[in-house]
């Protein structure tokens, strides 16, 4: 018995070492930098800047993150439901298609969208060929949200799909036997059971959306900041690690708090497992 415990521990050791080195230790550094000034002394100035100088930027990021998460959910939910009830070969193909873009680097995909959306890009060239007016898309907030939805949609689809395939189809049969319409059975049977998938999908889309910087720089034209841009700039341009760490820390805490509340809802349904 003792031996088994020991070998289990030994097997997990590589990951434990990994996470201590690359997750825990960096977090300690972030916290240390966040509460110190450039002279190394304790200060709360940098933390407070989040709520003064950068609060508007944060609200904008939050808004963009919420919007792109809601759009992802609206697109992904029906698709995931349809997919989970399709034939095996359709499922295989579609899951493959969802994942396919992820084989290409995220930066390259976003850069490509910059060329597709611009005034002289493919879409506008096609529009003007067909005799329509061109539509200005690039360098707008809409383009940024589009970029977020495009890049993070798979992270919404996959957890929803995987939770929906686990829903026992006999439950749907039972619902219709008991007189539920199709819509009613979706609302009363599928939706409650898919809450854990929704929660993990929201988490996986909202967190990267709210903290992204590359998408806003390339598709937004760099003429407004998201909080990720501000943080990035502290490390790459201003060399103000303390402020960058403080902003990251506050952002992290706010996200954690909101995740905690989200989890409360999904934990209420203890059958589901949260995919992370």
């Amino acid at each position, binding site marked *: 018995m003792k031996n088994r415990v020991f070998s289990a521990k030994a097997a997990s050791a590589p990951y434990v070492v990994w996470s201590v080195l690359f997750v825990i230790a960096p977090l300690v550094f972030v916290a240390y930098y966040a509460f110190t000034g450039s002279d190394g002394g304790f200060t709360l100035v940098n933390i407070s800047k989040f709520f003064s100088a950068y609060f508007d930027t944060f609200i904008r990021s939050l808004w963009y993150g919420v919007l792109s998460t809601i759009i992802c959910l609206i697109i992904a939910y029906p698709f995931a439901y349809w997919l989970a009830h399709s034939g095996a070969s359709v499922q295989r193909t579609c899951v493959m298609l969802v994942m396919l873009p992820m084989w290409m680097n995220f930066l390259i995909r976003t850069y490509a969208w910059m*060329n597709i959306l611009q005034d002289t890009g493919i879409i506008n060239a096609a529009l003007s060929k067909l005799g329509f007016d061109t539509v200005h898309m*690039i360098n707008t907030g809409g383009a940024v949200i589009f970029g977020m939805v495009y890049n993070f949609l798979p992270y919404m689809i996959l957890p929803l799909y995987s939770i929906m395939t686990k829903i026992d189809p006999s439950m749907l049969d039972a619902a219709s036997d008991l007189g539920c319409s199709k819509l009613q059975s979706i609302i009363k049977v599928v*939706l409650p059971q898919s*809450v854990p998938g929704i929660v993990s999908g929201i988490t996986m889309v909202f967190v990267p959306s709210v903290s992204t910087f590359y998408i806003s720089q390339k598709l937004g034209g*760099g003429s407004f*900041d998201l909080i990720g841009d501000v943080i990035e700039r502290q490390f790459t*341009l201003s060399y103000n690690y303390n402020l960058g760490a403080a902003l990251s820390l506050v952002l992290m805490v706010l996200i954690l708090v909101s995740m905690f509340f989200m989890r409360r809802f999904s934990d209420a349904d203890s059958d589901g497992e949260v995919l992370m």
Partner: protein
Amino acid sequence: MKQSFAGTAPDNARSEPVYVSGRPSVTRFLLSAGVLLLLTAVCSCSAAAATDEEIEALRGTTLYVYNWGEYISDGSDGTMDVNAEFEKKYGIKVVYDTFDNNEVMYAKLKGGGISYDVVFPSDYMIGRMINEDLLEELDFGNIPNYKYIDERYRGLAYDPENRYSVPYNVGMVGLIYNTKAVTEPPTSWKLMWNSDYAGKIVMFNNPRDAFAIAQSILDIDFNTLEEEEWRAAADLLCHQKQVLQSYVNDEIFDKMESGEAVIGAYYAGDYLLMYENNEDLAFVYPDEGVNVFVDAACVLKGTRNKLAAELYINFLQEPDVALANAEYICYASPNVLVINDEDYEYYQNEILYPDEEHTPKTEIFLRLPDNINTLMNSLWEDVKNYDAGLGGADAEDGGAPQAKSKDVIKSYAGLASVALIGTAAGVGAYVRRRKRERSW
């Protein structure tokens, strides 16, 4: 043959290379060579060059080099592979990494945990690194090829006594425009504020270069210590946002080549590359003056292979190596043998090497004191987030649009929080109801 520089629109002048004659290059070369010989003599007195045995002993060692991306001839398309040639000659292995800009390089070096031997900062960053004691003094006895460096690029203010750096590439910033859209050859940076081209203008996405353009227009020193002058330049940059398409780095290649943007500011050498892909593009050094930059090779404090580093820096100025690099990188070379080599692809190229008459007013970037640097970065954030009311019409004065954007953001915030709380409450209520139903 000599025509106004601003008038060198692609279709007349650029279809055939224009060689501006009468450059007093030979005499100047001899003169500078003389000065150089003297200088090197002085240098070599203080430190004798390394002996062959010392150099031989370096075989099998490793040299860590940190340079800009795409900034060395790498053997592609039949060019010289400079690092491989160095390895072959000295038996010293070169580990080569690249960076995007001075700030990233600086942050990485300051972050610690890595050690390079040779780095290539630009002028103002060299000043900063000298000031912070990050650079090692060079032993010019081991860098005899320093004698080839044009005297114009010696003793510059960032390293006044030439103790820490050997120029690698030099260049100037200029105005790039598409002749299909801009038919009158421009002479002023003010073109970048012209509302006739609204939405077709791209601007530097880094504060130092962006501010320099505004400072040129306002006739302010690039290295000014007056806070008010920095604020004035920032105001000008805010006003530019009404006509600006976007802030760009290397995306400018795509934007200008495709015609998405028709006016932009960038480095002269890069314009030559853009021109290869779109012959409608033209280039001009505006009358108000431009920034001249020097990227130079330096050795970092704490290097474990100083002699190899100096051999490498010296190797880069070997005539054939410097020529290969100059042709690959397309930036102007500080090496007089390259400049005066008639077989050089850009020999007397009027953009890289304008003659005296067409050389614009130039100014170099120097290290800014910390308080000014912080001010510049924070003004830059204000500029980036300034809402010029892209509709154009309602952006009458500075105050109104900003107030408007605040209101918009506030209402967004309200909406967002209502949406969040609403969703949360909805889901919560629903789940609780389900639970109750189930427990029945």
